[in-house]
């Protein structure tokens, strides 16, 4: 039966993809068919079925991706749809995608497909992860036992998937027959004898489904089997229940699982991974350890610091700011403006001190983009190498060791992506008090990814002492507030639910897509705000408000923090986006307007400074204006207090960085 509006070659052979949920079935489907496919609801359901076309050596295949299932004895609408597709596509070939790490679950379906007698090929997917964990079954023995090809694949890397379509040309049905004991086997025989000769799938499979009480077969029975035969079938089932008990399906499943366990024992596993893998696994374990994890984190930060700070903030920013903008773009725009719009206002608006090109685009493209670009690449490596989940576990353990509530940790790690979204995450916490405290913690001390990138870039030019001071102060504040929060928040800590992937080399293609996706996200979100922020400064400058703001802020900015009055601008625009404020400070530092101590003081202050506009709006939305104003009234003086304490403390100690 065809569904939806799929346009498929009528001569195409049909291949049905079947498998458990989350085994990479859709990735295999995408690899076989390409990107554009047809999606339709299965008739009478909300379940989506995806169809696509694949070609191999002149043969056209219609590929049907079915919903993930745990069994073909349906317990859910998804499972019923998958089973029905198998029954209503006579002559179709089946490609079962298995999870190499969990063959016990996958083989439950293989047994049922074997009983159905459908032509079958097994794609044993995620073979790389199974090998890394040392649980990869020996496929040659699996092929022998089932009599069908079993191909190791890593679908996300397109490994092994090119072998699948050629095998679909002449597939055969799997061989094994699980024996369910004398009583059930006798009932199966009687049930098979009552079934019509031309069943859509193997009679044994149908007989077992009927004995297990599969009501979803009723429409097919009504269509295909005379009424008196259906009554006889019911009698066969009732007699079996009388002999073996009500739970026929349970007994059948238990027999299958015992059979699979024996089989897996006989198959054994591929030889242990090479020593290098052991080393990676050992490193992976140490990275989660609360003691050894800290020096590993320090090493990772050092690498990030070199890559983002030295390469991104040093070499790339010089290239973009001095060459691209300084030598080419700004003079070109100034030249064009002088000729096309020869008014001082237009020149100022575009290339003046608060110009759209000279400041907004220059900050966004020439300063922040190279830094966050390298940072995003580094962050992607941390994600794809499997380090990030380990960092989360290690931080969780450290926090618990010092008595902090686990609930305080999760939003802080999420805040490294986006503080605004992490603030929304606090909804998962149970009480209002919890939500307010964690929101405050986020607004106060967790830099978002873009701001962290710029800060790392600035710190790299100062040296290790400045970085350690910044990091220690920030961690100290977070730990202190986290500890206090854990004392105030009652109840048990909530544990992470993380699947720890193996440590592995990131794939270049994945990294490129991931980094570009983040850069595109940054450009879409940041550039308009940079333009708005610059416009605000431009208008404020023209109206004389900027001077007024600098005069008002002077006792704080100049008196307490000992920063130049112009750094007021950075704190003002930092309210729109934290990375924009940091970029303003970066520009000043690069122009030699800040001493090393001033850089450290300004970075500590702007990291702890009031959250960005989007975050503040979310705080208002989540907790109301009173709480938001209260937080702002705490954070603002607190950030200045810590900044000025560092300033005076360093001067008193004679530290210049």
């Amino acid at each position: 039966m065809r569904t939806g509006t799929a346009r498929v070659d009528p001569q195409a052979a049909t291949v049905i993809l079947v498998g458990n949920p989350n085994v990479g079935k859709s990735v295999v489907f995408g690899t076989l068919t390409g990107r554009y496919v047809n999606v339709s609801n299965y008739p009478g359901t909300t379940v989506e079925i995806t169809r696509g076309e694949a070609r191999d050596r002149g043969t056209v295949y219609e590929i049907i991706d079915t919903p993930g299932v745990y069994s073909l004895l349906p317990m859910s609408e998804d499972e019923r749809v998958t089973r029905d597709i198998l029954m209503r596509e006579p002559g179709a070939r089946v490609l079962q995608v298995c999870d190499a790490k969990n063959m016990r679950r996958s083989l439950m379906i293989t047994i049922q497909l074997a009983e159905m007698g459908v032509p079958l090929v097994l794609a044993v997917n995620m073979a790389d992860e199974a090998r890394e964990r040392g649980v990869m079954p020996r496929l040659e023995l699996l092929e022998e036992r089932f009599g069908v090809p079993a191909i190791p694949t890593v679908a996300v890397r397109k490994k092994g998937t090119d072998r699948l379509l050629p095998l679909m040309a002449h597939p055969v049905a799997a061989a094994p027959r699980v024996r369910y004991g004398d009583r059930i086997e006798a009932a199966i025989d009687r049930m098979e004898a009552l079934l019509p000769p031309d069943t859509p799938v193997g009679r044994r499979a149908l007989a077992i489904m009927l004995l297990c009480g599969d009501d979803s077969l009723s429409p097919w029975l009504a269509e295909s089997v005379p009424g008196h035969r259906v009554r006889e079938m019911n009698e066969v089932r009732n007699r079996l229940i009388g002999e073996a008990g009500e739970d026929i399906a349970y007994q059948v499943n238990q027999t299958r699982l015992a059979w699979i366990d024996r089989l897996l024992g006989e198959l054994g596993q591929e030889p242990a991974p090479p020593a290098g893998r052991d080393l990676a696994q050992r490193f992976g374990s140490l990275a989660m350890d609360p003691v050894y994890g800290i020096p590993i984190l320090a090493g990772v930060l050092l690498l990030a610091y070199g890559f983002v700070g030295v390469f991104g903030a040093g070499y790339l920013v010089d290239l973009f700011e001095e060459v691209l903008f300084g030598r080419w773009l700004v003079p070109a725009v100034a030249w064009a403006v002088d000729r096309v719009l020869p008014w001082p206002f237009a020149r100022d608006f575009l290339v003046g001190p608060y110009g759209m090109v000279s400041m907004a685009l220059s900050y966004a493209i020439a300063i922040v983009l190279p830094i966050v670009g390298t940072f995003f690449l580094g962050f992607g490596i941390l994600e794809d190498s499997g380090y990030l989940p380990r960092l989360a576990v290690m931080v969780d353990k450290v926090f618990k060791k010092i008595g902090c509530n686990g609930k305080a940790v999760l939003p802080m790690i999420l805040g490294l992506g986006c503080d605004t979204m992490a603030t929304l995450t606090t909804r998962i916490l149970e009480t209002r008090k919890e939500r307010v405290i964690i929101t405050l913690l986020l607004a106060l001390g967790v830099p978002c990814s873009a701001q962290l990138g710029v800060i790392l870039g600035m710190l790299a030019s100062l040296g290790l002492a400045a970085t350690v001071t910044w990091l220690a102060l920030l961690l100290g504040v977070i730990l202190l507030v986290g500890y206090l929060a854990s004392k105030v928040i009652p109840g048990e800590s909530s544990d992470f639910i993380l699947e720890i992937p193996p440590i592995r080399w990131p794939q270049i293609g994945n990294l490129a897509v991931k980094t570009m996706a983040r850069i595109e996200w940054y450009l879409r979100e940041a550039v308009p705000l940079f333009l708005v922020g610059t416009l605000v400064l431009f208008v404020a400058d023209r109206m004389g408000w900027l001077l007024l703001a600098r005069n008002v802020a002077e006792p704080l900015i100049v008196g307490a923090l000992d920063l130049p009055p112009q750094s007021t601008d950075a704190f003002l625009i930092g309210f729109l986006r934290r990375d924009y404020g940091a970029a303003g400070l970066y520009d000043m530092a690069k122009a030699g307007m800040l001493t090393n101590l001033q850089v450290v003081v300004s970075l500590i202050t702007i990291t702890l400074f009031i959250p960005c506009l989007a975050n503040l709006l979310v705080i208002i939305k989540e907790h109301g204006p009173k709480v938001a104003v209260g937080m702002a009234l705490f954070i603002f003086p607190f950030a200045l207090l810590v900044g000025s304490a560092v300033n005076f403390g360093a001067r008193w100690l004679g530290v210049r960085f």
Partner: protein
Amino acid sequence: MEGRKPGNIRCPLCQHVFDPSDRGCRTGCPMGKSCSLVCCPRCRYSFPMPESKVIDFLKSLFPKGTRA
């Protein structure tokens, strides 16, 4: 209905595999309109959809041949 079905994606933090449609963070955030972040339904980690227009464009310049 005819169109592209986005594949499931894996959360880089907790490894949960989920369908990213309707998982955008946009509903709660004032920056939502232009934001392509998605939130993992299990751990709430936010990250951009692993799709890049630039890379798609570059790929379109060098189309792969059809499978032999």
